């Protein structure tokens, strides 16, 4: 086994709402929900979900993500992966719920679901209209409902409110969600109450990505190795899910 970053050339960079889509010159055979560790020397190395086998969607929020978002065609980025377990598509009619850059793996999933002939609905949310990401990509394979905190586009309010309504109006075989863990906990509670199967992609700070350092602990689960995608039912048994996570020192920190 070798897990060493390979330097891969950037083939294209494009802004799309709140994320910058980075296309690489190489494909990484991967499933929606799996991630890669992206490395920029001096800036760090962190997990990013695949948007397709050769694309990532980066929200520029800190040192590394801003560095990644400001790469240009021809620059190189270190990639190791794919890692983790992705989403498993089930049934005929699926509902995808994404908050912020959580929409990245869901856009990949929506394409796969469409290929399998499933009916795909997406609820996507962001603080404001300008930060809604990957809208046209989603719209090409799903019916899309937007929510913004400030009401600048779509429904004013949270994706969880839209989810509650959606589950009343129609039957879905499975719900798939990714976003801030606080949101995910609510999504999980809503789905379990309605008895709708639900898979969630959890977020934890990662170091090794290899299942040995223990940094990504979620009450005994390793998010990098056992996840990042889990069944909602399993995560709801975990007291820290959506509430606390480990900081880089290993100290429990409130989300």
């Amino acid at each position, binding site marked *: *086994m*070798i*897990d*060493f*970053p*390979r*330097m891969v050339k950037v083939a294209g960079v494009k802004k799309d709402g709140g994320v910058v889509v980075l296309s690489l010159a190489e494909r990484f055979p991967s499933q929606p929900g799996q991630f890669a*560790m992206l*490395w920029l*020397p*001096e800036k*760090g*190395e*962190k997990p990013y979900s695949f948007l397709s086998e050769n694309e990532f969607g980066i929200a520029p929020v800190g040192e590394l993500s801003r560095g990644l978002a400001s790469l240009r065609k021809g620059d*190189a980025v*270190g990639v*190791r992966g794919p890692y983790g377990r992705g989403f498993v598509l089930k049934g005929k009619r699926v509902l995808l719920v994404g908050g912020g850059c959580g929409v990245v793996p869901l856009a990949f999933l929506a394409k796969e679901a469409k290929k399998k002939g499933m009916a795909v609905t997406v609820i996507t949310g962001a603080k404001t209209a300008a930060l809604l990401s990957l809208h046209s990509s989603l719209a090409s394979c799903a019916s899309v409902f937007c929510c913004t905190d400030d009401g600048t586009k779509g429904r004013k309010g949270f994706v969880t409110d839209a989810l509650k309504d959606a589950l009343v109006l129609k039957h879905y075989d499975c719900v798939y969600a990714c976003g801030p863990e606080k949101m995910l906990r609510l999504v999980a509670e809503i789905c379990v109450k309605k008895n709708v199967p639900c898979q969630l992609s959890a977020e934890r700070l990662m*170091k*090794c*990505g*290899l*299942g*040995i*350092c*223990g*940094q990504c*602990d979620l*009450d*005994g689960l*390793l998010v990098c190795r056992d996840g990042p995608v889990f069944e909602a039912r399993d995560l709801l048994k975990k007291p820290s899910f959506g509430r606390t996570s*480990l*900081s*880089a*020192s*290993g*100290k*429990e920190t409130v989300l």
Partner: protein
Amino acid sequence: MNPLGVSFCGSRLRNPTVLASGILGVTAAQLKRAEEGGAGAVTTKSIGPEERSGNRNPTCVALPHGLLNAMGLPSPGYEAMGEEWRQLKKMKVPVFASIYGASVDDFRRVAAYVADKKPALIELNISCPNTAEHGQAFGFEPSVAADVVEAVKEVSGRVPVSVKLTPNTHKTVAVAKACEEAGADAICAINTVSGMAINIEARKPVLSFKKGGYSGPAVKPIAVRCVYEIYEAVEIPILGVGGITTGRDAIEMMQAGASAVGIGSGVYYRGPNVFRLVCDEMREWMRGNGFASAKSLTGAAHD
């Protein structure tokens, strides 16, 4: 009788496999997982005197024959771990508490606090190659290592004290002897081997700390040699660590002189159930080779 049962510094282990420090052991929940994976005992991630985030990523990569890491001793600090200690009380297998410091006084302070929590053993990490100010410097000089052991023994009460040694010096055996003379109850060998890997396309060392500690299959011969030599030099029991991923590896380490074996990188190669797999393989080998108990393996390769 359980053929794999061994005792180590007064603790009875259901089998000789021990989760090595720094692997998974950040939280009690992960230590529990190693227990469920079959470990005979578990070691906590090294606990330090104050909160420390460790080095920036990349902190760990896998090379063709081993892992290279420079986590940099992240720790919430000993005083911030109240809840973890409470959870650790629920463990069925013995818990070894690994500690580190930047001075003899740090070691004393952390050890005094930790001893009060009554772990099965305190392991002094004087051998981490991955920080500037902590770690292996204490393990380079026999007299310095002895000072740390003496200071800790003053405050450790009935909790046995083991010293984890670095292979990155020609004085490993002399350090082991000095620690024994200073009152150490056991030796743990080895910590990682100092190394580096460069990403040639990036023209940069791949780890942000540049250097790292090498572990996994590639370092087994180094660990076996250290344990073999230490066994000839000291009377106290040895926890043999380095490159163990199979039952045969564990048996080799015990024949070199180890009373129990630590497994770290093996968790990467074979998953958190590596302990059970290693034990199954040990049992089978022992059956086929006329060894009735794991105890009788210790030192079997010596004249």
